[in-house]
C-alpha cells in the first residue's frame, strides 16, 4: 500500500496547480470587502481581526510573496507535506523513547 500511496501523493503534488484554476473563494471564507458589497457593512468582529491581527504567515494563502502563483502553490504543497512528515516523525520518536 505504501508504494501506491506515495505515488498518489506525488501525482497530486505534481497536479496541485489545478487547485488554482478557480478564483472563487470557499463559502464562508471571504475577504472583508465581500461583506461590504453584500451587506453594506463589515461585521465588527471580522473587521477587528482584519485590522488588528496582521499576522505574518510564512506562506499566506499558499503563496510565496513576490513569487508566481504556481511556484508559490508548489512550494506550499511541498513545505506543507514535509512539515507533516516531520511532525509525525517527532511523535514517533516520542513514542519510541517512551517504550524503550
Amino acid at each position, binding site marked *: *500500500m*505504501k508504494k*501506491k*500511496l*506515495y505515488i*498518489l*501523493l506525488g501525482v*497530486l*503534488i505534481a497536479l*496541485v496547480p*489545478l*487547485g*488554482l*484554476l*478557480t478564483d*472563487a*473563494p*470557499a*463559502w*464562508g*471564507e471571504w475577504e472583508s470587502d465581500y*461583506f461590504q458589497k453584500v*451587506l453594506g*457593512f463589515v*461585521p*465588527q*468582529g*471580522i*473587521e*477587528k*481581526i*482584519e485590522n488588528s*491581527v496582521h*499576522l505574518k*504567515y*510564512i*506562506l*499566506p*494563502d*499558499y503563496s510565496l510573496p513576490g513569487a508566481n502563483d504556481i511556484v508559490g*502553490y508548489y512550494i*506550499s*504543497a511541498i*513545505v*506543507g*507535506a514535509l*512539515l*507533516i*512528515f516531520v*511532525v*509525525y*516523525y517527532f*511523535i*514517533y520518536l*516520542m*513514542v519510541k523513547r*517512551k517504550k524503550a
Partner: protein
Amino acid sequence: MHIPDGYISPETCVVTYAVAAPLWYYGFKKLKEKLNEETLPTLAALSALSFIIMMFNIPVPGGTSAHAVGAVAIAILFGPWVGFVSVSLVLLIQAVVFGDGGISAWAMNSISMGFVGSFVGYYIFNMFKKYKFAPFVAGYVGILASALVVGIVLGIQPMFWTLNGHPEYFPFGLKVAIPAMVGAHLIIGFAEGVLTQIVYKFAGEKNIQRMAV
C-alpha cells in the same frame, strides 16, 4: 470549510476549545498507540494527502469553491480517533503557516472536519462494510456531516451576537448557512468518496484487518 478568525464569537471559540481539548488528549493517546515503525510512513503519507487534497479547490455553483478533506480514509484505516487527530494536526499547520482557517477557530475546524468527518465516515463504513462502495459512501456522507456542522455553527452566530442591530461575527443565519455548506458538499462529496475508495483499495483487505485492531 476552514472557518477564519473573527467569523465565530470568542464565546464559541472558548466552548469549542473546551470540547476539543479532552478529545485531542484522548485521540493523541490513540495515535501514539497506533504509531510504530510500520505505520509511520503510511500515517504520515495519509495526513500529507489530506493536506494536499485540501489544496484542490473545486468550483461549485453559487460562485464559491470547496475541497475534499481526506479524513474518512484515515478513519477507516486507523480508526476515527486517529483520523480526528491527524486532520487536527494538518489544520494546525494550515492555520499557523498558511493562514488558512483561524487559530482561534482551530478547535472548531478540528471538530467539524476532523472529529465529525472521521466518526461519521467510520460508522457509515462499518454499516455498509459488506458492499463494494462502502468507502465511497462513507467519504460522501462523512464530509457532508462536516459541512452541516460548519453550517450550524456559522448560522447560529447572528442569532446570539449582534451589535447595534448588526451581526457582530458571521452575518448569515441557519437558513442561509446550512443549505450553502451542505449544498456545496453534495458535489465535493464525490471527491471525498472517490479519494476514500482509492485509498481503501490501495490498502488491501489484509492490511486493513491488521491495522484496524
